[in-house]
């Protein structure tokens, strides 16, 4: 099977195994995670490069992937260089436009199925359970072994882990005492990708802003 994009992997891993509902995440976290996934996909495709100061366009020609090309065109149309954080903010605001085509792609690949339900016969509820859970299990097993072991990650796995931790999905995906004991290792792995670090910073900022707005204590992060 063709390798899933980071965008597809984040969408897939953000869904509950059994119900197909989106896992509980802090507000805006998935938006930033998907925005980061798009940037990571464009970087792997050799279209953009990043550093702590800015995102650089390397090649504006389309990738041929309709999940990515609208965002590459958006970046290419920008005259002034912008930081990764700035692009995350722009793309996170378009979360639905990133997420929906990725869900459709996962359905067409036979990985997810669409399930429509009614609550109280009126309220429509759409869920995306997996067909057999194989892909999600494979990713979780591979990344779980990386967290629990001492092996070096390849750049792709480092990026995926960094994105997952950045949008707080690792708390849902890798739960249990064996993973709690490896928090320092996960933190080290998650530092390895700049886009993932920026996703984490943006998510943290959003959580703090919301806590302040609601006059609630800032959660431990």
């Amino acid at each position, binding site marked *: 099977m063709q390798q899933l994009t980071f965008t597809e992997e984040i969408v897939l891993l953000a869904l509950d195994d059994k119900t197909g509902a989106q896992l509980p995440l802090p507000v805006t976290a998935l938006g930033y995670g998907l925005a980061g996934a798009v940037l990571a996909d464009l970087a792997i495709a050799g279209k953009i490069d990043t550093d702590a100061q800015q995102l650089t366009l390397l090649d504006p020609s389309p990738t041929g992937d309709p999940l990515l090309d609208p965002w590459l065109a958006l970046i290419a149309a920008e005259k002034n260089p912008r930081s990764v954080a700035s692009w995350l903010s722009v793309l996170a605001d378009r979360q639905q436009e990133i997420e929906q085509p990725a869900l459709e792609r996962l359905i067409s690949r036979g990985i997810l199925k669409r399930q429509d339900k009614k609550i109280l016969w009126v309220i429509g509820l759409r869920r995306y359970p997996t067909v057999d859970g194989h892909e999600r299990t494979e990713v979780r097993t591979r990344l779980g072994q990386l967290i629990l072991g001492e092996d*070096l990650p390849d750049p792709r796995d480092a990026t995926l882990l960094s994105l997952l931790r950045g949008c707080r999905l690792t708390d849902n995906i890798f739960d249990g005492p064996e993973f709690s004991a490896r928090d320092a290792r996960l933190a*080290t792995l998650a530092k390895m990708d700049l886009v993932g670090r920026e996703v984490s910073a943006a998510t943290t900022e959003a959580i703090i802003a919301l806590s302040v707005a609601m006059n609630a204590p800032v959660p431990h992060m």
Partner: protein
Amino acid sequence: MEITASVVNEIPVLTLRGRLDGLAAPAVEEKVAALLATGPQRMVFDCSGIEYASSAGLRVFLATAKKLKTVGGRCGFASLTPPLREIFGVSGFLDVLEIHDNLESATA
């Protein structure tokens, strides 16, 4: 970016000078691939001339270290310049990669 291949104490060394960014990374990748195709158990990056490394550059380093580790080999990084050391620090690379103060210790 200037890329020079040499052998020190029978260990292949790639010396990089200039900016290791998204434009230079493919050429470094190509050199690394050619070098790894010869089946070495060790290699060293001489980083004494690296002025800058972007995310694309860091990916080349991590991918090379991973490939060598997968076959039971080692990849050393010698003489990190201050900007590279800073990026390695932020990215956690100082904790997971084999860092050497100089080429002599990396090729010992």
